[in-house]
Structure formats: structure tokens, C-alpha cells
């Protein structure tokens, strides 16, 4: 699909706005529908669009398999880490109020970080799964 100028131009125009929209959904999830799960899928969709139009090789150059795997792990660790920090501050596991001491700010910060962790994990898992499926034959032949 690289040869077709329509696909190429549309993919280039849409790539950044899709990621913008994903970030909006991620960080505005407290006030409107959205959150880490949806944002993760939307951001992954931007990268998948790029990989479909410009080829898998180009997609893997943007996000390498190693970076992807680390992001996957980091997302889960961020989520668990928030729980551990709240324990270290004297609360229960994942008790965000203990993070700052006040209910409103503590819960806000905790939910933001936790959703970020979810978003990172979902983005990188979806992207890794797509790359694995799309490159199945080439990877096996290597």
C-alpha cells in the first residue's frame, strides 16, 4: 500500500491526531468517557495504521520489539508500584488516599498513575500482538 499516494498522505495526516486523541482520552478519563484501556487501544491503532500503510519494517523501526516489551512490563510495574508506595506511606495496598494524605488529591494522583500504567501496557501489548501476527512468516524464517 506504500505506492498508493492516497493511503500514504491520509496515514501521515491522521497519525498525529489519532495519538493526540488517545492522549486526550487517557488524561481526560476522569471527566468524560475514557481511560487507560481505551486510550491504549487508540494509540496502538495509530501505530498499526502506520505499519499497515508503510510496511511492517517501518513500523518496527518506530517501536522496536525490545522497547515494546519494556513498556509492557513498565505499565504493570507502575500499577503495582503505586500500590506499594501507598503501602510504604502507611496505607493499604492501592489505597491512594495515603499517597498525599488528602482524599481528593491522593485519589486524583493515584488514579492518573494507575490509568497511565494500564494505558502503557495495553498499547504495547496490542502493538506487540499485531507485529507478531503480521511478521509471523518472516520471523520464523529468520
Amino acid at each position, binding site marked *: 500500500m506504500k505506492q498508493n499516494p492516497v493511503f500514504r498522505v491520509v496515514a501521515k495526516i491522521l497519525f498525529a491526531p489519532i495519538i493526540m486523541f488517545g492522549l486526550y*482520552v487517557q488524561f481526560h*478519563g*476522569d*471527566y*468524560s*468517557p*475514557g*481511560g487507560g*484501556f*481505551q486510550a491504549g*487501544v*487508540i494509540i*496502538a*491503532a495509530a501505530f*498499526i495504521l502506520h505499519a499497515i500503510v508503510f510496511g511492517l519494517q517501518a513500523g518496527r523501526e518506530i517501536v522496536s*520489539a525490545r522497547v515494546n*516489551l519494556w513498556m*509492557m*512490563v513498565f*505499565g*504493570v510495574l507502575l*500499577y*503495582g508500584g503505586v*500500590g506499594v508506595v501507598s503501602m510504604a506511606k502507611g496505607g493499604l*495496598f*492501592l489505597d*491512594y488516599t495515603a499517597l498525599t494524605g488528602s*482524599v*481528593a488529591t491522593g*485519589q*486524583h494522583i*493515584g*488514579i492518573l498513575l*494507575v*490509568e497511565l*500504567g*494500564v494505558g502503557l*501496557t*495495553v498499547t*504495547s*501489548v*496490542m502493538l*506487540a*500482538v*499485531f507485529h*507478531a*501476527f*503480521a*511478521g*509471523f*512468516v518472516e*520471523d*520464523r524464517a*529468520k
Partner: protein
Amino acid sequence: MISLFVDVFLLVLLVLIAVMVVRTCNLYAVIVMSGAYSLTSAAIFVNLDAVDVAFTEAAVGAGISTILFLAVMAYVPADEKPSLNRNVLAGFICIGAGALLLLAVADLPSFGDPMSQVHQHVAPRYLAESGSALHIPNVVTTVLASYRGFDTLGETIVVFTAGLGVLMLLAGTTRTHRMAKKTGKKTASGVSKRVSKVLPKSTGKKV
């Protein structure tokens, strides 16, 4: 009233798509229809006030899931072969189970009943506290990340583990595949060869 009409129309559409999925043999058509199925159910979720769920279903079910199925279709035959004649047996099981479930419908709370048990347990507390104590308007986010944080942590780990499983199965990083590469053999089924290679030795040692 209009909401009920939309609900009925979309649900009938959903059943029609499901029946089409049963009857179609071309897998590409089936996959596109399952994407349409997801999108229709997302519309139903909006109608039933579940905007977050609709958002997720539209992005995941109609988007990513369809793409993954299509990516797999590159490697497998495009048409379903005429299958074993199990339709009668399957139909019998499904109609029987469906009839039993229909009997149970009588015990369910009627649709939209505000006094049903579902709405009396913890939901009123979530709705009351989310605004007054947490100052977060989207109650779904609050419940997801805060009240049921453990739940979501578990779900995230499930997604993570499933991703790892796919990578292990496909990306050629399994031990059997590496061993096969090392020995220079291009095996189609690395596992079974390795098992057959290892088994005789170990049984021999035991004796």
C-alpha cells in the same frame, strides 16, 4: 419510548448479523460481519447508558479485533470447508439450553427496574461518594481505578500475560525454535520432534 424502539431495532439487527455469521462460509465475510456485530453492540451500549463500554467495544471489538483476525487470514485458507454433520445435535443442545435459560428469565428483575437488587448494593455509595469526596465526575473511572483497583490490576496482568503468550507462540523466541535453528533443522513442528527425541532416552535411562 424512542429509546425502546432503537433498542429493539438494534437487537434485531444483532440477531440478523449473528445468523448471517452462522450461514456464511467465506471467512473474510465472517470477520467483517463480526466487526459489524461489535459496532452494533457498541450502539446498543450507548443506548443503555454505558458510554465507556461502548467506547471500548467500538475501539477494541470493531477495530483491533477485526485487524487481528484479518492479519491471521493471511496465513490460513479463506474458505471454511463444509463441516461434519453435527447441525442437528448442536441445534438440539442449543435449543434445549436456550429453553432452560428462557425459563429462568421469569426470575430476573424487569428491564430498567430502579428497585432491583442490582442497584441496591454498592452502586449508590459509588455514585454518592465519587462526586462529594473524590471530585471525579466519571464514576466508571473511579470504580475502575480506585474502588476496584485490585480487579483492574488483575485484568492488566491478564492482558500482559496474554501478550507474552502470543509473543512466545509466534515471535520465534521459544526454546524449541532456537534449538531447531541451532541444529540447522527447519522443523515444522518443533515440539513433537523434540518430544520424540527426548522421550526414548529418558525411558531408556529409567530402565
